[in-house]
């Protein structure tokens, strides 16, 4: 039932509204902290900045507008889609 194309957070464009859909975590190697920080499926987010040379992402998410930095490697665990 894939209605919209989902992509990974690491490939998502800057300053576009998106939604966390699922995790890409078959080997269970994803740090649990991602979930603990509240980046759960269904959470809206926006990537505000990225540090140069594919550095960390600066994202804002959820109703609380929590802001965190995470690396591209971590962003690869997170499946997202654009909000239209």
């Amino acid at each position, binding site marked *: 039932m894939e209605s919209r194309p989902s992509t990974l957070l690491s490939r998502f464009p800057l300053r576009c509204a998106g939604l966390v859909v699922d995790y890409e975590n078959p080997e269970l190697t994803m740090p649990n902290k991602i979930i603990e920080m509240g980046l759960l499926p269904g959470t809206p987010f926006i990537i505000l900045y990225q540090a140069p040379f594919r550095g960390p992402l600066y994202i804002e998410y959820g109703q609380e507008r929590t*802001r965190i930095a995470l690396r591209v490697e971590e962003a690869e665990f997170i499946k997202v889609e654009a909000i239209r």
Partner: protein
Amino acid sequence: MQTPSPGAQILLVGNPNVGKSTLFNALCNKSQKTGNYAGVTVASHSGRYLFNGKEVEIIDLPGSYSIYPDSQDEAIFTKYLLDQAHEYSGVVYVLDALNLKRGLLLFQQIQDLGIPTLLVINQIDEARRRGLTIDTEALSKLLGVEILLTNAKDREGIEAIKKAIDEGKFSQHSGITFAIPLEQKALVERIASQTKENNHYKVWTLLSSETYLGRLEALEEKLNDQESKCAVPKRLQTQETVRRYQHIAQILDKITTKTPGRKELLTEKIDSILVHKFWGYVVFLAVLLLMFQLVFFMAEIPMNWIDGLFVSLSEFISANMAEGPLRSLLAEGIVPGIGGIVIFAPQIGILLYLLYLLEDSGYMARVVFLMDRMLRPFGIGGKSIVPLISGVACAIPAIMGTRNIENTKERLITILVTPFMTCAARLPVYTIIIALIIPQDYILGIDQRALALMVMYLLGFVTAMASAFLLKKSIKQNVKTYLILDLPPYKMPQFLYDLRIVLEKVWDFISGAGKVIFAVSIILWVLSYLGPSKDSSQWVDTEVHLDDSYLAQMGKFIEPAVAPLGYDWKMGVSVLSSFAAREVFVGTMATLYSLDEDVEEGRIIDKMRSDTREDGTKVFSFATGISVLIYYAFAMQCISTIAVVYRETRSWRWTLLQLIGMSGLAYIAAMLAYQLLK
């Protein structure tokens, strides 16, 4: 319900950046640090206050997001929470009104562990201003806990918290809010009956934790194959977190009014510059430069006062005491020795203060974001930048600050290279030597001496990076590394609180170094006052010439070892006496030169400058000076750092490797420099 007895201990718990330390500060009038060296589990502050005639002790635990630890910091938190349960009478849990969701996760975990809790919601005004209303009465009923509201920043609601603690308004649950998944339910129940543990959540944590909470060895045996497959700790943790968040979302739906997404307008604006791809780095560099500028310019005036004070104290003693050994000990041994170190208190204080303010404002988290990618080729990450920068003040707090680095390899590398950063204790050595060998002149309007000092700071940084790179290549350990870091909204630093902590630290530095220098001064003075007798009827002579003293004999004994580096016996003694702490070098030099009657009276630095060797050349030639600078840039001359490295790595191998590596490099590099330049 529990009532704290006199001397009750209360834990202050919550997520990072929820205003815990502000609340701590507002609660405790008598702040008191737990010992840095006692090896205790608590890395944070403990403080006390009196209420209703009873003394209450508050322990501020490191912030955490869940009871499952990811880093050393969080492990300390969990360990204290669970192991010391008999010590404290309750947990005051601090919740940020602006981020209830994330905070409630840890809160409910703690509640489910059967720990008595009291909930404090901070920043309530800020939430109201943003149109967020919280039905605290309903929340209190849903969670089954007493709720208090505060604005810790404005010290609002503090008395009410003290009163609630005094009245023992902590509530303890027997049931648990977390519904254990069906797949594990039978297993949990079986272990519960076997271990006679009534709290099913505690049993669950035995299954779901990988490290500290006690993934019991015995447990593995009790589980059959089928069960072990189901009980992959990581999967269980994920399940728990997701379930809890679902539950929390339901609660929040009932008690908060939904608001259209608010914006951190100020933070937004500031960040558009401070984390900018280009301007972000420009600002960071400017901040660093400004910091050093302030350290040197602002410190100059108080440093001159201190210098003047100690010189007149020495003169006063010389003028008013009867001639004799005691006068010589005081005026020429102890006073110049202590003065030699107190003079650096302003620089150290200003540096520490600026670092605390930056940390407090939320800027340091942005620096982590900016620098992460740049540091990764060196085997360290963004979180290492904070220890590296604080290493410029002192390696000891810097090394303890590595505890929040989750990756063990990154943390080890950071611990091993941080002592290369130019710490404040090197400043006295650098300042004196640079003043001796670099003439006061200007290149392109910049003070040559300031430039030389900057080169020394750069040398430290470059060496740290180079060794990090080597270590990355040589440590065979591949642990998955990650960076997930909260970027809190900017806030005004707590100027007074930070100042108080800085003054405490500076006093620690002075009294700590002071004690060593005091002892060293006395030993030096005794050894220099006495000498082997030329008269065979006596064993020792008193009031001998410095060059005939026992001290000189000992110095000359070690001279062959330091001669290739270009040092005379006085410098040899100074280097040796500063093995425990670098700054002692200057204290020893000051004592030695005040004792030497051959050199004219005056400021110690003038005495050093005019001192000559037997062949008439200056003792402090350019080559010797450079050799001393390089030696102190690299050598691990600090016993406290060695101790803290051992404590943090729990490995003699790494501690010794670091000591030998650093001091070996120092000796060889200093020797090469001297031999090439002389």
